[in-house]
């Protein structure tokens, strides 16, 4: 069975900085994969390349057997991949509902614009259902620019699911969210996505989240994949300890402040 996403030998450099070094990743239908790595390790660059926002220096990206390496973002989206952003990208002057309506409007094709206003009955119902699934129906008439961070993230992800993607890349879905809320939000997201049966690739810094939700974990460091496998194994991997997670706090010995 061909994998859903097949990335082979992806390379990307920005001048002398190597953001991606021979990256090979495979994602199966419906899989949930976590990506970890310290800042600057190349995780977001990877997501950017898979979604066509950046072009790799070399290597191929295949989605459902089709080569999408050089496609522009909008074609990649049309093919069935979607993503959410580290900093949520929403239409700040539009309401939450309008944000999703626009997403639906585009997804449903804009071929007969004059005869179907944005606030068309069936579309509004679909939007409300989506808002309900992500638990943000209460915010429906609020301007997106005024939303609290967590809600904005959920809106961002909701917009990404409108086209019913087969693969969704989430870039740090819980960053900027308080510790108490993180799990709640991830529960909502993963429940909504499981209903869609879409494969998920999420970038995360919080190892507890990774441990709980990922079936498989890939660890990046300085543009290279240093470990891959079950979450517990990867997190315990010495290379991962060295480059990504660091030593557990208990094992560290604190040095006394130097005498002046």
């Amino acid at each position: 069975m061909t994998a859903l996403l097949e990335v082979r030998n992806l390379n990307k450099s920005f001048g002398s900085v190597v953001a991606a070094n021979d990256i090979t990743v495979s994602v199966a239908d419906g899989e949930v994969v976590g990506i970890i790595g310290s800042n600057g390790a190349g995780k977001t660059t990877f997501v950017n390349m898979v979604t066509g926002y950046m072009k790799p220096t070399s290597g191929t990206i295949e989605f459902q057997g089709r080569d999408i390496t050089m496609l522009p973002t909008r074609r990649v989206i049309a093919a069935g991949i979607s993503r959410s952003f580290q900093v949520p990208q929403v239409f700040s002057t539009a309401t939450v509902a309008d944000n999703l309506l626009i997403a639906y409007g585009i997804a449903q094709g804009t071929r007969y614009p004059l005869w179907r206003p944005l606030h068309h009955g069936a579309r509004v119902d679909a939007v409300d259902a989506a808002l309900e699934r992500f638990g943000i129906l209460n915010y429906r008439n609020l301007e997106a620019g005024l939303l609290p961070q967590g809600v904005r993230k959920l809106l961002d992800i909701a917009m990404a699911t409108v086209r019913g993607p087969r693969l969704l890349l989430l870039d740090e879905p819980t960053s900027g969210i308080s510790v108490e809320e993180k799990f709640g939000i991830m529960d909502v997201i993963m429940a909504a996505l499981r209903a869609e049966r879409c494969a998920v690739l999420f970038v995360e810094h919080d190892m507890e989240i990774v441990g709980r939700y990922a079936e498989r974990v890939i660890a990046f460091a300085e543009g290279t994949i240093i470990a891959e496998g079950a979450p517990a194994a990867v997190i315990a991997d010495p290379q991962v300890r060295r480059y990504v997670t660091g030593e557990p706090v208990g094992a560290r010995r604190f040095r006394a402040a130097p005498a002046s």
Partner: protein
Amino acid sequence: MDRTTRALLAAAVLLIGASFLIPDWVIFLATVIVAKALVVLGLVILWRTGLMSFGQALYYGLAGYAVGLAQAELGVRDAFLLVGIGILSSAAIALVLGFLLARYRDIFFAMLSLAFSMIFYGTLVRSETLGSTDGFSILLPHFLGYAPGSRAAGHDLLILTVVLAAAAAWLVHRYLASPMGHLTTAIRDNEIRVEYLGYSVERAIRVKYVLAAALAGAGGALVVLAVGHVDPDSTYWTTSGEFVFVTILSGAGSVLAPFLGSALFETLRAYATDYAPHSWQMVLGVCLLLLILFMPQGVWSLFGRVRRLGAKDKVAS
């Protein structure tokens, strides 16, 4: 039928009714006001997308010259055909230029549009066949085979202008309410998001640019038919500047706003011509400054403010 549609219909009916009672000079003024408002309507679409064209005079003037040439070279006299020719010529050029312009935003877009209009101006001024700075005259329009005298032609033209403008404004209103229409403010807010939803921002901008040019062309064709003359001034940067001014004056809040703004503008111009004939540009500049500093949403936003004052007691949802 929503509020805007009702208002458009009412305004059109009223204006056409009044046209039988008002003197000739008011008929002429009304025609110019409504026609120029069409140009501004196009600019409003672009303004909502976050773009300001400093060169709409290109399409405004081009349509005028197309009308004149169609009369002179092709013998076309029918008003409907002439306006159609004006619209199509402007739209065609905009389609081509759009491929370059749609890649740019903000000041690049503004100045590139200015540059293109000035190229056209330069070409016209150097062209002896097109009358150079004098331009040439436009003959009275015919209406579906019927050739009215000067007075009746002016009246018929006003009716045509009002009907066309009302139809255009209604179509733009529907357009702005559709998903494609929402891609105006959406693009202004977040282009990356639009691409990530699967739509080409450049393509959307090109479409809006052609729309704006078509509207400018309609306005330009109607004005030259009303005035009976076309010259390069209609493509000069100051003409573009006036359209920009009216756009800011009107605001982007409603398709009705440009008509109000255009009326206010012509009134302002009438007073300025009387009291300060050599200071028109200064008046324009000062007023534009005051508008930008104190009322950047345009006069239409005043209606919104009044409505909100009335609703202040309601609890926010």
